[in-house]
Each structure stands twice: as C-alpha cells, then as structure tokens.
C-alpha cells in the first residue's frame, strides 16, 4: 500500500511541474503579447516606482528559469499574490470561500448518486419502457444544455413564475446562501441541481449500460435458474458489478464539480471560489483570477489523488497492478 502511495504521489510531480510551468509561461514576458506587470497589478494605472518595485519583487528582469524557481517558491509558501481590489492576499480570500464550494459540490454529488443511479437502474431493468425512453431522451438533452441556461430557467420557474402563480406562497430561493425567509439548506436546492445536471445524465447513462451488460451475464442466468427472486438478482448480483465504473466516474467527477462551480456559483450568487473568480473577472483583478485557477486546479488534483488512493484500499487489483490510471 505504501509503495502504491509513493508511486502515485511521484506520478503527480511531472504533472504538477507541467501545470505550474504552463501557468508561469502564460505570465512570462515576451511569450504571449501581455504585459507581465499588468497580470500582477490588474489594469489600474501604476506609477513607475511601483512598477520597478514589482519588477524587482517578482524578478521580472532576471532570466526565465530563475523567475520560475522564484514563482515555485512563492507557490510553495502559499503565496498567490495580493488582490488589488481588496488589498488582501489572494490565498486568504479563496480559503474563506472554499468551504462553500465544497458544500455545494457535495450536495450535487448526493443528487447525482441518488437520481443518476436509480434512473440508470430503472431504465436498464425495464428496457424500452416509457421510463427508459424518457431517461435516454432527457440524458441526451442534459448533455447538450448549457449549464448556466439551465440554472437561469430553474430560477425563472421556481423562483419567479411559481411565486407569481401561487401568490408569493410557494417558491424557492434563487440567490445567495442565507435569508430570513428560508432555512439555509433550501438555498442549496437549485444550485445543487444545476451543478449536478450534466453529471447525473452521465451517471444514468453509464449505470444503464453497465446494468444491461451485467444482466446479460451467465451468472445472472444461473442465479435466476436457482430460483432467486428478480429483486435479489438485481440488487445482490447485477448491481454489485455494475457499480464499479459508476463509482469511478463519481470519484473523478468530484474534482470536475469544483471546476464547474464557476458557472453555477455565478448564476446563484453562491459565495464560493468560482463566484469570487467571476467577480474578479469583472473587476479585471487578474491576481485573483489566476490565483483562483491555480487553487482549483490543485484542489482537483488532490481530490483525484485521494479518490485513487481510496480505490487502492478498496480494490487490491489496483494496488498490485501496474497501471494506476
């Protein structure tokens, strides 16, 4: 186990170096037609003294490899620069908002698991039934729907039209995390559904195809021939094998959810890391934008590492097998 852990962490190093190098190159002078000082200060006018100070501080006049080492050193210290709008370290701003992003992602995962898996099972067990056709149809549409538009339509329906029709009695909150009228969890319903939408469609699809494959296996026929009830066959035999790829997908998806949060959080004014990035884009506060991107990329990488490690605990084949992907 320890050996696997070490190997998996070592594998992360080249990707980590590559990712940081790519982001560093984006900022390096002369590589792209942007002013590196502007990337650090945002778009406000700055005095020549301040400019010289920044060039000195970030080593912008030194050779590139030296700059990169300096940059890595700052990252290692957790220094993502300062926000020019808020005059606070970027990392502090993001750390404040991160729990909200995690909360929303976890809520979305719960929806994804419950709805995605049950829809997949129902449509596989009752293949070609109305429920199956509806599931297949809605998953195709969900994959093509722009998440932010789905969020806006949910807001329009549950927050505005429903409120109008029921005379201000029944509706859902469509913005923020707290209010006087609703309990906190109610604020999470629509954003979590929005964030979960695309993944739920994928989970349902994978679950359906895996379940169909499992149901066609010989051991299922044997189990049926033994006289086991349909329910026992489905739950105890087919499900167990069909679940493995679904669990893998959900694991990978937890990371993707954090990244996908930027659109969802923006639409619902959910005060997470993604919303912070959106606000910073509007203010041309580039240190927060770039810092936020790095922050989320690292979070995704770490989540994926943890997910991989948990598989190794669960499935000995991965621990001893060569390929870790």
């Amino acid at each position, binding site marked *: 186990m320890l050996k696997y852990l070490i190997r998996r962490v070592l594998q992360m190093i080249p990707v980590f170096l*590559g990712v940081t190098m790519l982001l560093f190159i984006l900022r390096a002078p002369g590589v792209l037609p942007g002013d590196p000082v502007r990337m650090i200060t945002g778009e406000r006018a700055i005095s020549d003294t301040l400019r010289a100070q920044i060039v000195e501080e970030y080593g912008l006049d030194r050779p590139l490899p030296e700059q990169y080492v300096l940059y890595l050193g700052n990252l290692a210290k957790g220094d993502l620069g300062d926000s020019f709008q808020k005059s606070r370290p970027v990392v502090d701003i993001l750390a404040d908002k991160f729990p909200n992003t995690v909360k929303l992602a976890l809520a979305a995962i719960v929806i994804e698991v419950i709805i995605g898996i049950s829809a997949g099972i129902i449509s596989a067990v009752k293949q070609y039934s109305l429920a199956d056709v509806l599931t297949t149809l809605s998953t195709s549409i969900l994959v093509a729907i*722009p998440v932010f538009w789905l969020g*806006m339509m949910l807001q329009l329906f549950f927050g505005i039209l429903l409120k109008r029709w029921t005379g201000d009695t029944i509706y859902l909150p469509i913005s923020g995390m707290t209010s006087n009228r609703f309990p906190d969890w109610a604020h999470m319903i629509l954003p979590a559904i929005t964030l979960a939408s695309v993944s739920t469609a994928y989970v349902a699809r994978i679950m359906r195809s895996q379940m169909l494959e499992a149901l066609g296996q010989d051991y299922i026929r044997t189990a049926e021939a033994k006289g086991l009830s349909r329910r026992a066959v489905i739950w105890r035999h087919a499900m167990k094998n069909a679940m493995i790829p679904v669990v893998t997908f959900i694991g990978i998806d937890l990371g993707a959810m954090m*990244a996908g949060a930027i659109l969802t959080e923006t639409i619902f004014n959910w005060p997470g890391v993604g919303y912070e990035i959106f606000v910073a*884009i509007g203010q041309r506060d580039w240190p927060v934008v*770039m810092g936020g*991107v790095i922050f989320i990329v690292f979070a995704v990488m770490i989540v994926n590492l943890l997910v991989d490690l948990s598989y190794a605990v669960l499935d000995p084949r991965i621990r001893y097998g060569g390929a870790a992907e």
Partner: protein
Amino acid sequence: MSDRDDLHHDAHNPHTHDESPVDHGELRDAAGHSIKDQSRSLPIPPTDDIITDGGRTLWGDAWYRLRKNKLAIAGLIWVIFVILVTLSADLWVKPYFGDPLAMDTTLGANLQPPSAEHIMGTDKLGRDVFARVVYGARISLTVGVIAVAISVAIGLIMGALSGYFGGFMDTLIMRGADVFLAFPYVLFAIALIAVLGPSYRNVFIAIGILGWPSIARVFRSSILSVKENEYIDAAKAMGAGHMRMIFRHIMPNAVAPIIVYGTMSIGGAIITEAALSFLGMGVQPPTPSWGLMLSDARPLMVRAPWLMLWPGFAILTTVLAFVLMGDGLRDALDVKMKD
C-alpha cells in the same frame, strides 16, 4: 423540429453545403450519394438506393448507414438549416426584422415583450432579439468550426509525431497532453484569456489550443493500430519516406475517429464559447453572441423573462444537433463493430 418527410427529402445534398453553400443550385442529380462529390476516387453508381453489399467503399457504406439513423439526420438537417438561415440573414432579417446592432432609444422601445413587429421582443437597448439570435449563430458556428480546426491541426501533428515515431517523442507529447488534461477546461480557457485579453479572436484561440490533447490521443491510438498492418511494412520496404508514410498510408486509415470526435467537439466548443462570453471572458458587446445575450438577460429575469428563452434554446438545439451527428457518425464509421 421537422417532420419525417423532410428528413428524407433533404438528406440529398447536405455534404455539398458543408463545403460550399454556393454550389446549391448545381446539384440536380438527386442520388443520395452526394458525399462522393468530395472524394473523387470513390466511384459509386449515380443510381438511387443500390443496396448491394459488395463494391461499396467505407465512405459510401458509412453514408448509407448514417442515412438510416433518423436522429443523426435530424441533427444534420438542423445544422444545415441554421447555417442557411444565418448566412442569408442579410437578405431577409435586416430589412424585415431589424439590424442586430441597431439600438432604438425611443421611449418605450426597449424591453418590449414579443409582438408582431418584434417576434422575440426587444432587449434593454431596443435591439430586435430575433435578429440577434439569428446573427448569433454566425459567432457560435464560426467559433465552433475554427476552434475545432485549430485543435485538429495541432492534435494531428502531435498525435502523428507521438504515434508514428514513438519513444522519447511519444513520452514527451503524451505527458504534455496529461498536463493540459489536468486543467478543468473552462478554467484554463479563463487563465489563457486573462493573459491574451478577452476578445472574439482569443476565444477560438483559447478553445482551439485546449482541445488538442484529446485529438492527439485519439489519433495516436488509431495510428498505433494502423501501424500493425502489413501494407505499412510493404510501403516501408518500398522505400516510402516518413512524410509519405504518414500522409499517404496512415492518415487516410486513421482519420475516421477524428471526424467523429471533431463533430462532437464542435458542440463542446459552442457551449464553451457561450460560457466564456457569459462570464465576460469571451465575445465582447455589442457583438451578438448567445452567451453574451444570456448574460445581459440575467439581471432582467423578472422584468423581461423572454430575453433568456431563445438564446438558450438556440445553444441547446445547435449543440444537440452536433452531438447527435457525432453519435451517428460514430455508429456509421465504426468499421470494427460492423461485422
């Protein structure tokens, strides 16, 4: 979107439209094999509906199977419809419905609900929403096609170098692809555009650059499987050089997955453009972009809910059309699954 009769009727000339919509009038030969016009080397009798199994090429075969896939054809027709509508917009939308950029500052001219004069209403600057939705298709389709073309160009080169030469080159390129894939898509586009500056051109550059690793991987693996064939050894024995090997012998046989993947990617690129424009990192006002229109509509959700309906519907249907076409092409071109 359209009824079944249309499906069959229009299925005749889609591929010529893809290449050059001007050729439209010349296509009087009503055979369902117009795809052949592009690949001259594939002789197919111009007679309609020959269903013999022998003598059909991969492409003819694929087209035959694609035609039977109703969803894929529906997607194809929708894409052609959108292209025709948006390209001809100067002729009928501008004079009869309005200029997508023309503001109307008269009192009460803005935020009108849908009416006979403005069938989708007007936005906060008094511009006709229908005209903006129609012209928005130009932006979306252009970004989709150019971005994917960039990805395919980079991806093909990288994939070819990696799959054909193998060894150190392979390791280097594939690890590079891993680095790109480690980034969540939209986030990297945001980082790239933060440096390049938000603009129409930079959107497709960013999306294009981001798409290469998947194309390279797909192409690499199909090269690896083609490389096993004996005719490759034969070509090598006859003294074919690297370039000739790649372009004449390997590429034509490894290109089917790229077509499938590319078609689906256009849908993805359209959604990404809309998302970036929605966040303010894409196409800038006053250009009519669907994502931008949705971002304008958001604060007006209570006062003018109709503003957000049509741009979103346009994105959904166009992306869905490309996804369905991609699904259909995948089924139609998958030679291995055929037997």
